[in-house]
């Protein structure tokens, strides 16, 4: 056991740092809330990485992965966080991609994986339904076989950034009379331009349009778009959820957030002194950083286990719970740090493209919306209550 980077790893860090410095798109530096980005902005870095072959470091090399060790991947995410990089969105690279290369057939791998890597095709996730959130297995969207097509009917919700999506992966019920709700579900890839699909925006409490309802009415999808076996979709769904959870800790990003918070607290004044000199505030930052360190080393242990050939297990629930709690506290402290200037609502501003209406310091503008928005993190990806249920069942055996 040791914590030092080997000379090779130091060389690797220098290589990726230089690459990021030279190639991270200029127009993406200093961009604000993610949900306000355009499609092109979301994809700007992804496309660069696609060309370089670095879009999906965790994938097996034969499908376009980098073959990096877990330490190299750790270095990679650290270095990206340094510039607050807008990383490739998880829906293709971290979610459907691994399902396709693990359970898909050769045609599917050849058809979908390259365009996920290149960023040419944008994916969204058709999992949750109005009546099936935490209890995902109770989903009601049906896919009924009609010759060599499925006809899909139902409604999905909380579909992140579906407004930009070219493709979606949908969980649909293909055997309505199965004995258990987890049985009789299939994993189906759907071209979002198919007739019968309607994407309706859901505006969240921060004022953003990040999530959507997706309505499916007699949507005809070729049977060949099903991944794996019919009625075995739950297995693939669970596999995907475990992958989703492992990326969810957000350690590198939270580190960057703490750094930003320290900068804010060094600028904000309390009785004429920097806020950071206030014991009660600086201790809260310390506490957060200590908790983040615990999370970081838990994640490193998980990664090491993964690179030893064991997939992400139920331990990844720890990363989800602790990671999101830290992210939320970070947004909470940031809002606290900016004081009264957390109140102005910049989204509602008369915007004429000039900076004339800039009120208060720039770093305050996103503090409240981000805090509001990040309440989602303990809800999505399997709520933190569900993660605790998983640990209860899978690890404690209760």
């Amino acid at each position, binding site marked *: 056991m040791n914590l030092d980077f080997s000379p090779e790893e130091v060389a690797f860090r220098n290589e990726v740092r230089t690459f990021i410095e030279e190639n991270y798109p200029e127009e993406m530096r200093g961009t604000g809330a993610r949900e306000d980005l355009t499609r092109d902005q979301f994809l700007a870095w992804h496309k660069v990485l696609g060309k370089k072959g670095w879009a999906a470091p965790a994938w097996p090399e034969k499908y376009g992965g980098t073959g990096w060790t877990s330490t190299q991947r750790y270095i990679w995410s650290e270095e990206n966080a340094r510039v607050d990089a807008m990383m490739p969105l998880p829906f293709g690279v971290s979610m459907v991609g691994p399902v396709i290369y693990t359970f898909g057939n050769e045609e599917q791998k050849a058809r979908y994986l390259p365009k996920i890597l290149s960023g040419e095709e944008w994916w969204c996730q058709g999992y949750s339904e109005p009546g099936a959130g935490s209890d995902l297995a*109770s989903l009601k969207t049906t896919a009924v076989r009609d010759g060599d097509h499925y006809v899909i009917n139902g409604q999905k919700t909380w579909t992140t950034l579906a407004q930009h999506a070219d493709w979606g992966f949908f969980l649909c019920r293909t055997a309505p009379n199965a004995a258990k709700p987890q049985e009789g579900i299939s994993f189906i890839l759907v071209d979002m331009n198919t007739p019968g699909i309607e994407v309706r925006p859901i505006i969240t409490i921060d004022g953003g349009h990040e999530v959507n309802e997706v309505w499916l009415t007699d949507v005809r999808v070729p049977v060949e778009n099903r991944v794996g076996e019919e009625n075995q979709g739950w297995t693939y769904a669970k596999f995907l959820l475990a992958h989703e959870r492992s990326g969810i800790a957000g350690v590198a990003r939270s580190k960057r957030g703490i750094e930003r918070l320290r900068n804010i607290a060094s600028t904000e004044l309390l009785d*004429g002194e920097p806020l950071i000199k206030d014991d009660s505030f600086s201790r809260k930052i310390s506490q957060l950083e200590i908790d983040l360190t615990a999370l970081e080393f838990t994640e490193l242990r998980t990664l090491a286990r993964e690179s030893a050939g064991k997939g992400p297990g139920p331990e990844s629930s720890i990363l989800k719970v602790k990671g999101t709690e830290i992210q939320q506290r970070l947004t909470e402290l940031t809002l*606290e740090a900016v004081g*009264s200037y*957390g109140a102005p609502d910049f989204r*509602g501003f008369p915007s004429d493209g000039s900076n004339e209406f800039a009120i208060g310091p720039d770093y305050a503008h996103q503090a409240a919306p981000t805090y509001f928005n990040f*309440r989602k993190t303990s*809800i999505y990806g399997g709520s933190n209550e569900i993660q605790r249920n998983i640990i209860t069942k899978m690890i404690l055996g209760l």
Partner: protein
Amino acid sequence: MDFNFTEEQTMIRDSLARLIREQYDFDTRMGVVKSDSGWRPEMWAQFAELGLLMAPFSEEDGGLGGGPIDAMVVMEEFGKGLVVEPFVPSVVCAGGFLKHAGSAAQKEEHLQAIMGGASTFAFAYAEPRGRYNLADLETTAKKDGAGYVLNGHKAVVIGAPWADKLIVTARTGGDRRDEGGISVFIVDKDADGVTTRDYPTVDGRRASEVYFENVSVGADALIGSEGDALPLIEQVIDEAIAATCAEAVGAMGVAHQMTVEYSRQRRQFGTPIGKFQVLQHRMVDMFMEHEQSISMTYMATLKLGEDAVERKKAVSAAKVRIGQSGRFVGQESIQIHGGMGMTEELAVGHYFKRLTMIDSEFGNVDHHMRRYTALSATDLAAAAE
């Protein structure tokens, strides 16, 4: 000891609750929040008609003979309805300054207008670099003949877009952060040299940055005497805090009720989610936080008339409790509502946002914890002597 409300207070509560129920439902409120003006002057007129705006003032001043408890009753109902109209800035703050220190002429001119709803005030005290320290002022008022000339920048002045007059704190002497040398003025919002930038706030209200550039006011603009207004400002802000705590109590109660109701309706795993013990206990904790917030709000409101140290400790204790409870209740309301709690179309998220922002009004948890601790140290030192 008596925690009962008078007949008059109960009447105010009932008629206000009915008005809000009938004319301030969530959809109407959202329409108003998104409208150009962001409030309803006609609603303000109805509040005046009901006597709300004169309720906390003595009969001698032309009021209904009530006090802080009446303001508490009003603000709790405002909290339940997420009312945006500026009761705290205009009635509690501006009215408070006039009540405590206004001259007969000032009361005659301004307090009557506030109580009748003809005039709306905002309270410009916070500054970009002052955080929550009321004495950390860069705004100056320089003696000029009989009057004064004001210069400075006031930050996030709640309700200023709707106000025709401002109460402004400024330094007439002393150094930045000195306790002495602070004065309070009444300034017409349309006076020469006053400019504003108006904007919406994240919790559905309106505020302004207010800039004073060589604004001349007469000697009659000064409230109380020159240079020693800090104790008065603290008194008024303590009253505003108590009223804001009542608002938080109202909002917390509704958020909790909505959450319990949702947990009854929402079914997952074949059962209402309210049947899950982990959520039950969390909602019990929300209930306890709400109850304790009610207690602290009563306590602080009842002690507003005590000597300064006793009053400040009571108010800071309440604000700490309300800040912490409001955060907990708000966050858990969203969590238990799940994704639905994140949507703009559901009311619960708006209660969460208001509860969040109340913490940073008139000093957050840390600020009041610090004030409470300092006052306790003073108490201890006095006891030791």
